């Protein structure tokens, strides 16, 4: 597998744009219930603090601060964009699906219908050492979602 299959264009783009990045500058919508989670990968020092705001059963906003490799930053960015507007149950389903693909060692293919841009992380599943990088913000989102709901 080539490096370009791991670092797909979408991933490299998102690692620069970082959609949803900036907890302090993005106030949660008034009246929304929020949950926040901090996750750390002690192996490489990747760190994400992610907040989910839920309004009327839907994800109103996902914002985060983080430091880490391009995979972990792009993954948080993609998640943030993807999650907004989904119902809490829908986001849980997407997170479960993402985890299944990432932990499959390449056996389960990503369905762009479900995962959208996050399907680009399919290649990461073949790099065992990088799965945690892609998962870190999704683990944070799951935890934050449980607190907000």
């Amino acid at each position, binding site marked *: 597998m080539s*490096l370009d299959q*791991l*670092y797909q264009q979408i991933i*490299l783009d998102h690692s*620069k744009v970082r959609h949803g990045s900036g907890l302090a500058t993005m106030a949660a919508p008034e009246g929304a219930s929020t949950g926040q989670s901090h996750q750390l990968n002690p*192996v*490489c*020092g990747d760190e994400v603090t992610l907040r989910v705001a839920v309004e009327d059963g839907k994800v109103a906003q996902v914002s985060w601060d983080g430091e880490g*490799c*391009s995979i972990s930053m792009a993954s948080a960015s993609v998640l943030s964009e993807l999650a907004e507007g989904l119902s809490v149950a829908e986001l849980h389903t997407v997170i479960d699906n993402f985890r299944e693909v990432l932990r499959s060692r390449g056996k389960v293919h990503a369905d762009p219908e479900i995962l959208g841009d996050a399907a680009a992380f399919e290649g990461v599943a073949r790099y065992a050492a990088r799965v945690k990088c892609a998962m870190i913000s999704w683990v944070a989102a799951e935890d934050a979602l449980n607190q907000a709901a």
Partner: protein
Amino acid sequence: MALVTTPATLERALPAINNAEVQRIRNDFPVLAQRVNGRPLVYLDSGATSQNPLSVIEAEQEFYEQRNAAVHRGAHYLAVEATEAFEDARQAMADFIGADYAETVWTSNATEGLNLVSYALSNAALWAAQGRGDARLGELAVGPGDQIVVTEMEHHANLIPWQELAFRTGARLRYIPVDDAGSLRMDEAAEILGTRTKILAFTHASNVLGTINPVQELVALGRKAGALVVLDACQSAPHLPLDVKALDVDFAVFSGHKMLAPTGIGVLYGKQEILDTLPPFLTGGSMITTVTMERAEYLPAPQRFEAGTQRISQAVALAAAANYLTETGLERVHRWESELGQRMVAGLENIPGVRVLGPAAGQERIGLAAFDVEGVHAHDVGQFLDSQGIAVRVGHHCAQPLHRRLGLTATTRASAYLYNTTDDVDAFLESVAGVRSYFRA
């Protein structure tokens, strides 16, 4: 007057290692002859773990094929053979570092060696408080108000055991800071070390900065304070001539897997009078004299610290590794690796956006270099290099406080050994030069 020829002077007379000799050396290391991701493997992660020459692999195999038995027990032929091989290996490791036989204790690795010393020292406090053991134990015991001093550049293995010893005993842990160039602040060291300092623990060579610390000065400060001096020799014993007696340290530790030997074996050196005074860390079989249902009496060092069945084949293999290094000549290995280290740093400094940690080009360093690439995380750097068959280490290299001090969370590290050529370094440099454009940093 007879002309005395020591091994060291003989070694100086030998020509320096060059690429042609390294090519011959590489033939001894089967693992290096492979291709990774379509390119010849460039292994620059020996600071994490080194590769094994055939002589080491064969020594372990030969032991299992012909001499395997439990040591120090059993009257049968194989038990005698195994015990001889095991104890000959100990003598070989003692010779390798200039120690005496009884001062050379087997451990699993340097981490275990450092934990052994720290736990034996807290046991010393317990024993002394109850009047058990040697009367001199009270002097070794660490207690409230005492100081344990380490440095800001330590590997976690030479930091956390001391944090925990401080926690158990009420002692205070202090550290000698590093300056921006990655050298120890020796002016501060002189301030910090005082009569309450019971332990001074520091690394001989930094696994991140590549700095070689001024052991002699530090030992002098430790002696003046009356402290025990503990040397982490993980990045020195495999790469340069080490003489623990000449350095006058009280303890020294290193790991076999970083010096051409298998995992699971390491050495703790301790001055004999200290080892024989200290209580044991692990207790059980093979380390006792008499045992009743109430208590036990312990053997002197080294057996006092070797409870349970030992890592016998690994010890034999480690001695074979030491022999390989001695035959090649550690002074020559050191000079070659210094050359590779200089080539790395000079090359890295020429790549825009790359910041090398530790001494600048032209200043002394061992054969490794850790660096930051602006705008690209170390994990991505490592992945990019791997796609070209180049193996390096990424992360904090078990030195989080040092990285924090330098304002970084993770770096990339290339570390060379005697089997690396200048071509390896050049392939690495060429690859690093392509990192920022790939990630559009």
